[in-house]
């Protein structure tokens, strides 16, 4: 490692961190390489492993969505490799797309990926609370992904029941080609994922509580740390419930119990042996997990966006404490609204009234956050770097996607809009696209720290604009499809009169999807090219005040080493008047 990279700037005085055990040019033996890159207990390596796992999952997931779009527009087309897409193939793609994206991308990349890498560093710690538990968690997640994907290669193919796996069809093997082995593999995979997520959550919560450095009070934590902390709490509680539900469904499938199978059920004309259960019970248990899961996916995005808007506006976060309060409020309310997914499942009107009211109440903390973001950039010295562009894109998508939320929260409206493309458009904008934009923003922002090089700004801007316009071009028309009554999850609607008339909209969406997914290769090119050929990054290229930017890029293997930083300031001291720089590092002590 070059000497220059080992110095910290922006701190008062110059400190050289020398790390002995970080690999530089020393030849590593295979066993050492195995412990350093594969079975590493270093939180930075584990963070990168989660990041690349998500990257692999998002590639497969996007490819599946492309197949679905092509099938919807040209139902008779025979494609290379996959051939002609049959209805059961379409359902399998749909299930796997949803599962990969929700579990292995949106709850993995922002929380486990960036969180593992930067939570300890932002708190001024050199490691997570339980490094070996972390290692175990990653490898269980990896195993879960392999098991999930293996369903494509078994007879019958992958599960058809959607990422929600609604009972009773998911409990009965004879209900479709993928419902035998495919669904069993799905359940085993998600069960393992639950265990890994709980292990990760234990680590995140303990790290936040116990590994903060001297002076890093809870209200001096950068906002991403707050969101990782709250998302970990949600993840702990939600995944435990999903694990219980998964075990029960697995028993229904393998041991012949009837937790979720109602009596007197006929599937494909044949009576089902077990019975006496309740299919609605699965929906309750699943959505008790499923709604907090939305916030597990999007909370880290809220934190990253708040952080980046402040850095690139050179202004403190507007209303830091209100932001923390809003994060906590979203976390608490997230557990009380699961019923809004079940308005049409047969629900007591009083219960749906309560769920509706609570769901609408989430708009309050969300609006606080949006207001504070606008307050943060208001009058700031904006720097339109790629991470800033993606953060602004996040705010835009968060507002657009969020506005249709209160509509869907009305039981009367939801009766009509339920299971239409309106819902697809809504959750893709707010959860999928906003979540992904936060991941892009985080990648561009932390790339210099992770790999010691800068990403290309011009490619980044091109990628941003195509993706931004593409996201709206794909998902905004879906709202109109939904209002027109177009149901989701149907593979072919050419013979239904009123839906067939909507084919031009589908064609437009498909072309937009092809262009947008194609544009992601700009990102991949930028990522891998910059990793090896990008301009060298300094210690603190963005002029950011949090602790990870006091370390050299990439940080040494032992993090802060035996020099734990001492924190004197809040995380967002930008635009400081009277200083030669316009910001104060959190550990800068020269203030008097």
């Amino acid at each position, binding site marked *: 490692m070059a000497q220059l990279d080992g110095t910290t700037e922006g701190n008062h005085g110059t400190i050289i961190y020398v790390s002995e055990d970080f690999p530089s040019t020393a030849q590593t033996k295979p066993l050492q390489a195995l412990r350093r890159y594969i079975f590493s207990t270093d939180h930075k390596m584990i963070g990168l492993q989660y990041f690349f796992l998500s990257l692999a999952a998002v590639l497969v997931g996007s490819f599946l969505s492309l197949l679905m779009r092509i099938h919807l527009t040209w139902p008779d087309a025979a494609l290379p490799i996959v051939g002609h897409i049959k209805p059961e193939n379409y359902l399998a793609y749909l299930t796997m797309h949803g599962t990969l994206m929700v579990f292995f991308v949106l709850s993995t990349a922002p929380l486990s990926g960036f969180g593992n890498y930067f939570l300890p560093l932002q708190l001024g710690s050199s490691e997570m609370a339980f490094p070996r538990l972390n290692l175990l968690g990653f490898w269980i997640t990896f195993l879960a992904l392999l098991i999930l994907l293996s369903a494509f290669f078994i007879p019958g193919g992958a599960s058809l029941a959607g990422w929600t796996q609604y009972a009773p069809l998911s409990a009965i093997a004879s209900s479709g080609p993928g419902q035998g082995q495919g669904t069993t593999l799905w359940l085993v995979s998600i069960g393992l994922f639950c265990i890994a997520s709980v292990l990760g*959550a*234990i680590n995140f919560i303990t790290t936040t509580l*116990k590994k*903060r450095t001297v002076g890093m009070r809870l209200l001096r934590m950068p906002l991403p740390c707050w969101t990782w902390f709250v998302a970990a709490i949600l993840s702990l509680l939600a995944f435990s419930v999903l694990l219980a539900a998964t075990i029960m469904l697995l028993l229904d499938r393998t041991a012949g*119990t009837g937790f979720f199978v109602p*009596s007197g059920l006929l599937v494909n004309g044949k009576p089902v042996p077990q019975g006496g259960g309740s299919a609605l019970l699965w929906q309750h*248990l699943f959505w008790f997990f499923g709604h907090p899961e939305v916030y597990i996916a999007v909370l880290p995005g809220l934190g990253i966006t708040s952080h980046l808007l402040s850095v690139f506006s050179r202004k403190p*976060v507007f209303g830091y404490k209100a932001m923390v309060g809003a994060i906590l409020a979203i976390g608490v309310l997230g557990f009380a609204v699961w019923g809004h997914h079940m308005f049409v499942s047969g629900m007591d009107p009083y219960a749906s009234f309560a769920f509706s009211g609570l769901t609408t109440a989430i708009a309050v903390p969300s609006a606080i956050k949006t207001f504070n973001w606008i307050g943060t950039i208001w009058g700031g010295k904006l720097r339109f770097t790629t991470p800033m562009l993606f953060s602004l894109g996040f705010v835009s998508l968060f507002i657009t996607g969020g506005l249709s939320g209160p509509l869907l929260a009305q039981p009367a409206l939801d009766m009509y809009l339920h299971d239409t493309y309106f819902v697809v458009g809504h959750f893709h904008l707010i959860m999928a696209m906003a979540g992904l934009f936060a991941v892009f923003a985080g990648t561009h922002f932390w790339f210099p720290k992770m790999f010691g090089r800068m990403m290309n700004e011009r490619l980044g801007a091109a990628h941003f604009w195509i993706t931004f316009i593409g996201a709206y071009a794909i998902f905004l028309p879906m709202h109109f499809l939904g209002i027109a009554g177009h149901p989701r999850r149907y593979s072919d609607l050419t013979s239904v009169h009123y839906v067939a008339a909507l084919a031009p909209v589908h064609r437009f969406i498909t072309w937009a999807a092809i262009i947008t997914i194609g544009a992601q290769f700009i990102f991949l090119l930028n990522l891998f090219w910059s990793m090896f050929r990008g301009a060298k990054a300094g210690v603190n290229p963005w002029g950011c005040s949090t602790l990870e930017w006091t370390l050299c890029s990439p940080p040494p293997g032992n993090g802060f080493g035996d020099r734990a930083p001492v924190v004197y300031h*809040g995380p967002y001291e930008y635009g400081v008047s009277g200083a030669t720089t316009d910001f104060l590092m959190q550990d800068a002590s*020269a203030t008097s």
Partner: protein
Amino acid sequence: MSPITDHIEVERKPKLGGGGPGKTPHRYGFGGGDDGGDHHRPDDFLSRRDRLRRYRIGVLIGMVSVAVLFIGLTSAYVARAGQRHWDLDTQTSVRDWQPLVLPYRQLIINSCILLLSSITLEMARRSLVKRMEFSTLGILPPRLQTELPWLTLTVGLGLAFLASQILLWNTLRQSGMYLVSNPSSSFFYLLTGLHAVHLAGGVVVLLCALLGSWLRLRHQSQQITVDVTAWYWHFMGMLWLYIFALLYFVK
């Protein structure tokens, strides 16, 4: 990117913006945010205490997760127990939940075994704490490894509980109560089975601690392992009583 100057010279007190107030580091706060007072000397007593606390918090959070798992199952159990369905043949609303007939004598024996093992593990934990205090003062404790018999006894009792549970399940199966007989029996096997799986995890950890204690490996790690496993074990005992009460009261 514009270069950032490499040091700060502040002429007057800067206007502090976002984040928490105050300029001085905060030493004795809740949880982290302080260095536990050990001033970066990682090898002394305070750092060990900090490590123990960290592991205790980790296990506590793990226990929350297990508790939520069982709360989920409880809600399913209670909902199912009260459920009726419309029978098409008789055109009536029927409740097909058959109340459990449980062998209470055996269940009470099992409970006693588990509670007894909690006491023996607590004895092991306390003897380790005592030894830790001695070694902190730099003296060897008068009697080494007083925890060994208690640990062995706990592992024995834990295995006895698991064996007794298997016997219980066998008895029930012989009397015609299978996993799939009725929703009530499904829930019985699910609740007790998952409890047994969690307890078996505790037994495995204790076996590792016992082995390490016997080989006199890194007694600090043994102490932490036994300490947090004791917490977990007591929690398992409480959970068992809870399951017992649930099965008894909600039929």
